[in-house]
């Protein structure tokens, strides 16, 4: 590949690396323990000791934001990971088997559309009590039909390609064809979808935590930080800025990355470039 990467991939990758780096780092180091209360030092302005200042309890903002990044990314990775792998396997199965297997899988995934992720998570939170693991379960569950659809649609196209017919003519089993031909060729749309769902997962986690249905105190979360900041909006508007910026950075990063990946994986666009 001699073509240079499009700008959106580069910017997206940098933003994602920033957030992911902070998340990983927070597991081993933050400037202060994120929950360390120092009431004497509340609402501190940004300084050399507290880079972004402190909140109403004197907690270091940078430490909280980093730890929250860890939480947010963990939720996204685990939830989208589960949804993506289960969904893609179901999609591959539906495309390979066709007939009633496909019909059942697709009808069930239709059902997923009745529950937007937020609503589903709210329902689970109401029934089982709010917690971060409920958020993960809800997002994972809602992602399964999404990935089942995306991978089935892509896989069905691959199944109509002549090289798949050639493999069938050669006597390959449908499992071997799914493994050798279909999966590698649908990887691109699935990965693109995964980056988008990452962004959605981060937004949903933030919204639920904001509503008090996600991360519970003292677990740090951008959404919960914003909820706390809202009550202090007249007093300390700066507290409402930074967590929001973090969410935007993370979501924008994944969004740009997904967009760019879609651009370079779209064979039509690729052909236009080479022509």
């Amino acid at each position, binding site marked *: 590949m001699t073509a240079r990467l499009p700008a959106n991939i580069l910017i997206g990758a940098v933003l994602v690396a920033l957030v992911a780096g902070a998340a990983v780092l927070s597991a081993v180091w933050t400037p202060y323990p994120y929950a360390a209360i120092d009431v004497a030092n509340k609402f501190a302005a940004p300084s050399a000791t507290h880079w972004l200042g402190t909140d109403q309890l004197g907690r270091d903002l940078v430490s909280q934001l980093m730890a929250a990044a860890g939480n947010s990314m963990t939720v996204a990775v685990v939830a989208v990971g589960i949804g993506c792998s289960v969904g893609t396997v179901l999609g591959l199965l539906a495309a390979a088997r066709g007939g009633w297997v496909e019909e059942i899988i697709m009808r069930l995934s239709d059902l997923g559309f009745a529950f937007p992720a937020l609503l589903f998570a709210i329902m689970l939170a109401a029934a089982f009590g709010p917690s971060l693991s409920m958020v993960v379960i809800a997002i994972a569950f809602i992602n399964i039909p999404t990935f089942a659809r995306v991978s089935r649609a892509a896989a069905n196209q691959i199944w109509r390609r002549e090289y798949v017919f050639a493999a069938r003519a050669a006597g390959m089993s449908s499992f071997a064809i799914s493994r050798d031909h279909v999966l590698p060729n649908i990887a691109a749309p699935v990965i693109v979808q995964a980056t988008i769902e990452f962004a959605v997962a981060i937004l949903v986690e933030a919204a639920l935590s904001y509503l008090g249905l996600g991360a519970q105190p003292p677990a740090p979360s951008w959404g919960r930080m914003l909820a706390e900041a809202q009550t202090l909006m007249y007093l300390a508007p700066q507290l409402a800025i930074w967590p929001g910026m973090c969410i935007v950075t993370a979501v924008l990063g994944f969004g740009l990355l997904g967009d760019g990946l879609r651009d370079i994986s779209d064979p*039509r666009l690729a052909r236009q470039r080479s022509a």
Partner: protein
Amino acid sequence: MSYFLARRIAGFLLTLFVVSIVVFAVMNVLPGDPALTILGLDSTEEARAALRGRLGLDEPVVQRYLAWIGGALHGDLGQSYSFDVPVSGLIAERLPLTLSLAVSGMALTIGLALTMGLTAAARHGRAGDWAIMLLSQLGIAVPAFWLSMLLVLLFAVKLRWLPPGGFPGWGDPVAAARSLVLPTVALALVQSAVLARVTRSAALEVMRQDFVRTARATGFAPRHVLWRHVLPNALVPIVTIVGLQFAGLVTGTIVIENVFYLPGLGRLLFQSIANRDLITVQALVMLFAAIVVTANFLVDIAYVVIDPRLRAQRA
């Protein structure tokens, strides 16, 4: 009645039925003792037993489901535990606010998105396209509740043009409308960013097709080609997303109503969860899901109106 329509309606009703089972199952079967959830861990066994009796929890699950769904079909959604009034009354009181929020949000979304998406597509690859796409990418990344907070900071706290939250009731239409401006904008800006991108890529997809080349070869101006030939053909994917977005807007109101302290269904749902009022929560979740399913059903019908090919295939 046409075969297609009959099948769609059957599918719609079936989906609603299955959704109601899922909602009922999650709220009643899985978590163990709803009385415990409602009353909390520090409740006495007698109080829980009394509540179970009142809620009919001693009866078999299937019977309870049938009672619930049967009541719902007659407009009886049960008695709210925390407000101690019929749930249907609570909903009827708050539905107009949520619906007007969702509908005005949708209208604003569609207007903004079509303008931005088509403009970007018409300027494909040029500066205008880039600017609009960057803006929309940013718009998608902004959480609606944070945008709401920023809007409140700017327009309510700093400029004092609009109220920061609360709802004065429908008695004063102007005040009511004013209090809905910021929530509507917060809802619509984010959603229109998504829809603008869909509109643009759908339009670009259509612009690659041969009949657009035919129209150009016939000597029509780009504007005419865009409105007459590109947009109608791009509508199918756009309408699909509009359906999904209406769902997003309706659930979005849950968050937004809480930011702005608006007494709608979302706020009611949130309060009911806080009060562990499972009866109300169950009714509201079912209602939200039903709205979403209905929106998707209407989208299916819209396809057929848009595209004569589907009309022929499915008529």
